[in-house]
């Protein structure tokens, strides 16, 4: 790949005509390999559909793909899916904003001062070894079974990845850049603003991506706690009626949420980290 790049770069000096012609076969090959990648999935889907139609897979075990699509469409049209999706999104948004902002705040406290590190880091490192999903029983005792334990679980799940990566990013600041900043007259606030924080941003964003994944996982677990709305409720409710089609639709929505969250952070990274060498070329 890098070889073709170099050749393309060389050619740009010569009239630009050969370049598009040279690129097309590569694009075609890419499409072809992409088609190949999807081919096996399509075959599996077809086998699944065939087995369902032939009665080899009972609907109460797993609904047919076509049934799932039809159900998804119905759920969207009836407004049921959008309603539950909004409830779930609201929980994620509330939990994430609490979790991410407290993760960032703690990372700043621990990262920017020795005393802050002494106070904050040890408890955080101890708490993070705890699988936070195991706290559900305690949370129910503390917060009841309403929205609070759900949001608290999402907050907890997202705070740690942000804290850990941002703290490491702050501490990983290149001392040579700090020196340069000091020689050129930056005070402590200036150093933090111009050197430390921008330098820690890439790892902080990696943490944010982990946080989104973790928040989603927390949401799935949290919505098992006596929910009356939300994607988790949709799934649990469907289980009681043996509606495997609705369950799969719910699972697909969770998957799409994960993909969407990841795409969101990637998009933000592309803007905020435009200075990185690998992004400059793209």
């Amino acid at each position, binding site marked *: 790949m890098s070889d073709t790049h170099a050749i393309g770069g060389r050619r740009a000096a010569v009239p630009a005509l050969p370049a598009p012609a040279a690129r097309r076969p590569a694009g075609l090959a890419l499409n072809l390999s992409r088609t190949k990648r999807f081919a096996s999935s399509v075959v599996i889907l077809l086998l699944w559909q065939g087995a369902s139609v032939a009665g080899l897979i009972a609907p109460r075990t797993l609904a047919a793909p076509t049934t799932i699509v039809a159900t998804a469409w119905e759920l969207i049209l009836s407004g049921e899916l959008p309603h539950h999706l909004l409830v779930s999104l609201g929980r994620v948004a509330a939990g994430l904003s609490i979790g991410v902002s407290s993760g960032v705040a703690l990372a700043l406290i621990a990262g920017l001062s020795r005393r802050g590190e002494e106070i904050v880091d040890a408890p955080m490192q101890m708490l993070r070894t705890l699988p936070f999903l195991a706290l559900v029983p305690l949370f129910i005792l503390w917060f009841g079974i309403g929205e609070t334990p759900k949001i608290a679980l999402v907050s907890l799940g997202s705070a740690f990845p942000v804290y850990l990566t941002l703290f490491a990013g702050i501490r990983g600041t290149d001392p*040579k*850049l700090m*020196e*340069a*900043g*000091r*020689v*050129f*007259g*930056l005070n402590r606030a*200036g150093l933090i603003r*111009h*050197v430390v924080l*921008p*330098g820690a*941003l890439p790892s902080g964003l990696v943490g944010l991506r982990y946080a989104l994944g973790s928040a989603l996982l927390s949401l799935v677990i949290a919505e098992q706690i006596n929910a009356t709305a939300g994607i988790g409720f949709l799934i649990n409710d469907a289980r009681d009626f043996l509606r495997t089609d609705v369950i799969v639709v719910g699972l697909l929505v969770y998957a799409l949420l994960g993909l969407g969250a990841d795409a969101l952070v990637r998009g933000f990274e592309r803007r905020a*980290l*435009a*200075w*990185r*060498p690998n992004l*400059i070329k793209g």
Partner: protein
Amino acid sequence: MSEERKVSVRGLTRRFGSNTVLHNLNLELEPGSFTALLGRSGSGKTTLLRTLAGLDPAPGDAGIDLPDRVAAVFQEPRLLPWKRIWANVALGLPGADAKARAERALGEVGLSRHHEAWPATLSGGEAQRAALARALVREPRLLLLDEPFAALDALTRIRMHALVLELWRAHRPTTLIVTHDVDEAVLLADRVLVLDAGRIAADIPVEIPRPRSHGDAGFVALRRRLLGELGVEADVIREAA
């Protein structure tokens, strides 16, 4: 004028643990002069430069008189990768015209077309030019250069030497370059100091008229003398030549 541009160090001793790096060192730099500080690795030259740059606060700071505007160029460009070139040059500059001043300085080092570039897209020589512009834009009275060309290829280094001399003539900051390259010292400076084990072992004026070239008679003689001061024996020099 000359009082506030004075650079003087009296009785500077620096120790790191049991290791004495600088030994009761005295140094005066003429305002507007160009001095080279030569020394083998471990001779204390970098420590002296860092002390002058205010990077290693010295307990013996009392004996150090420096002008108010000091700027430095390091061996690596040390540009902030997340700031465009002009913003790197303007780093820490007060005032609304910071960008305009940065762009003027970039023009002086021949980087007018790179204002908006990211540091990662520059070549080593270009990045070091930007670092030079970042130092110059502060109109320093004392310019400290810490082996600024050591990491560049030979051809780029020759161009950078010419650029530094040109800028020094135009702005006349008191300049101190730390180097281990004898040729570089003789080519650039009016005065060469040889630092050995934390003491100034030799203080030699360079009286070769500019522009200098490696073939000048005085150049060869001075080069041999400095190499001798650095402990490189005469037969080694002949062998290498």
